[in-house]
């Protein structure tokens, strides 16, 4: 019997018991639907994290002062004042394949301006900071090397700070005060949004690191050094070179600093999402198995119910194979249809989630393929035994069945 004719037969048989077919498919629908929805949400989240990691800049290596365990005490990054401006200069001078560096000094201060005030982070940076972070100036200009050398009282502010201190007006040319020291605003940074770890990246004031260290914070150590490697291939080499250079400079056996690459940051940020995907795949396979059992159950009932029909078909010349294929196709139709409906519902659900929560969602094409394929496979596996049972019926017994 032709596959097309058999398919028509299967659809007709399934339509005869609409409610039952729907309930049978429900297992597969829910399984596939939840997987597609969850995969769409995690993929969207991972994609967003990756985008944000990329927004850090290209080929970035970060050197943090302090270490996970220094002298027996586990401190963590930035917990000990071990990095100096000289370290940053040595890295730029001595490590090959370094494109740019910027010593970073960070402190939280109250900032005043325009009769308003806000609490924000003051970043002391070098001129290369913008280049390293692939960041642009929206209004005005960046401070210059001369400003850095002369400890100039100039600042570039982020969008969040601008909105708080200078709502609906151009902040460039205005003056802000940090610890009672006036800084002239020379530039406004382009909006960057939230970071991988949920920090508002636009909530900052950028000043020359020299000005920050001497005038504002009055300290001699820096928090970390931003380093840009020349090429993506040289990142690991740069990381190793910085480590050995700083070890030699600090004359320490146990390093009192930490060197992280952008890649490691990205891996840390996406690790959760990866675990989630594995977990989802596990749940998916469980729900598909449950759905498959449901299909097998109903197909067994259906074979018993339709014993007489099987007898009639055999009497008029159906071979065992014809009966087998008929019931197998019915089971596959059930599960494949359930899979398709599940994919549709899953994608719809993820769109609703995206719409109502603002999370980005993305349905990977590969998962649509995996979902349809595995639901068809579930149909074949769960339909085979009932179909085989039907095909082995004796025509005389089947015809006599009441």
């Amino acid at each position, binding site marked *: *019997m*032709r596959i097309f*004719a058999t398919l028509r037969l299967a659809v007709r048989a399934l339509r*005869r018991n609409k409610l039952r077919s729907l309930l049978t498919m429900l297992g597969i629908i829910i399984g596939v639907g939840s997987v597609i929805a969850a995969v769409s949400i995690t993929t969207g989240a991972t994609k967003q994290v990756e985008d944000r990691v990329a927004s850090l800049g290209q080929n970035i290596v970060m050197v943090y002062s302090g270490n996970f365990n220094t002298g027996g005490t586990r401190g963590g990054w930035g917990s000990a004042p071990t990095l100096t401006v000289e370290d940053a200069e040595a890295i730029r001078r001595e490590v090959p394949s370094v494109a740019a560096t910027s010593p970073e000094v960070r402190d939280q201060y109250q900032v005043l301006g325009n009769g308003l005030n806000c609490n924000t982070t003051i970043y002391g940076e070098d001129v290369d900071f913008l280049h390293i972070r692939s960041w642009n100036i929206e209004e005005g200009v960046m401070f210059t090397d001369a400003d850095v050398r002369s400890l100039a009282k100039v600042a570039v502010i982020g969008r969040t700070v601008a909105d708080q201190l200078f709502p609906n007006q151009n902040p460039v040319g205005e003056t802000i005060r940090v610890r009672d020291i006036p800084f002239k605003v020379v530039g406004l940074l382009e909006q960057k949004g939230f970071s991988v770890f949920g920090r508002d990246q636009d909530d900052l004031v950028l000043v020359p690191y020299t000005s920050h260290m001497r005038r504002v914070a009055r300290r001699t150590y820096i928090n970390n050094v931003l380093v840009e490697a020349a090429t993506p291939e040289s990142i690991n080499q740069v990381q190793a070179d910085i480590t050995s250079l700083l070890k030699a400079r600090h004359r320490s056996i146990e390093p009192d600093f930490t060197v992280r690459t952008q890649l490691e940051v990205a891996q840390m940020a996406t690790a959760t999402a990866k675990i989630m995907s594995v977990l989802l795949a596990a749940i998916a396979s469980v729900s598909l198995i449950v759905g498959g059992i449901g299909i097998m159950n109903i197909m067994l009932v259906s074979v018993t119910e339709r014993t*007489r*029909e099987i*007898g*009639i*078909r*055999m*009497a*008029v*010349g*159906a*071979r*065992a*194979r*014809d009966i087998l294929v008929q019931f197998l196709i019915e089971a596959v139709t059930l599960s494949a249809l359930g899979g398709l409906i599940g994919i549709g519902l899953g994608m719809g659900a993820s769109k609703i989630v995206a719409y109502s929560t603002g999370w980005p969602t993305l349905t990977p094409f590969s998962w649509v393929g995996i979902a349809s394929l595995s639901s068809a496979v579930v149909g074949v596996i769960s339909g085979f035994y009932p179909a085989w049972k039907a095909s082995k019926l004796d*025509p*005389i017994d089947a*015809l006599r069945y009441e």
Partner: protein
Amino acid sequence: MKPVIQLKDIQKTYHTGEVDVHAVRGVSLEIMPGEFVALMGASGSGKSTLMNTLGCLDRPTGGTYLLDGTDVSRLDRDQLADLRNQKIGFIFQGFNLLARTSAIDNVVLPMLYLQHRLSMREQQERALRSLDLVGLGKRADHHPNQLSGGQQQRVAIARALVNQPALLLADEPTGNLDSQTSIEIMGVFQKLNDQGITIVMVTHELDIARYTKRNVILRDGKILSDTPVPNRLDAGLELSRLKQAQEAIKLA
């Protein structure tokens, strides 16, 4: 002319538990093309078993069975299925139509299992011709539950005819029908037989057997008698006689 059915010393023994049941013990029978035979006998006489054997639903445990020249005894399940498909048309007591399936789709059923495939259009045309033959061409779209018992049996006959079999096998075809409808169905059989179709029918009703040409009576798994029917009844005549009688009752 070669016989359609040639049975030589057919035996059928069922092994149920400790006792062997000899349902058929040595039946030899030849049926020529164009014959119309009634197989008769009390229950337990072996007529149903013989019918299953003739219908290639079951294989004999002994003897040989040639159907249209083919030795059935040595065929496997698939070959038997093909034989049922091409050489035999079945008609059952309980009609055995597929429920919730239109008359024409029921008639199309045997064509779905033909080894050489027919186009959809050809299937529909042949099914419609078959339904016309039993006078139901206008009810092709009706479902079995919209048809009377007699009409359902006609659909079953159309289904049996659609693959142009060498043999029609009817198992108590009038068992579920009232007397007038029974005569109508016998009329259909007589008409088909007049066109040259070979029919073998199992029945236990003597008056129904009188519409056939030859009566074979079985007892205890053996042929008791095998006689041509004298004074064969004509379904058309009987039907008009029955109607006249009904008119007479009304007038009286």
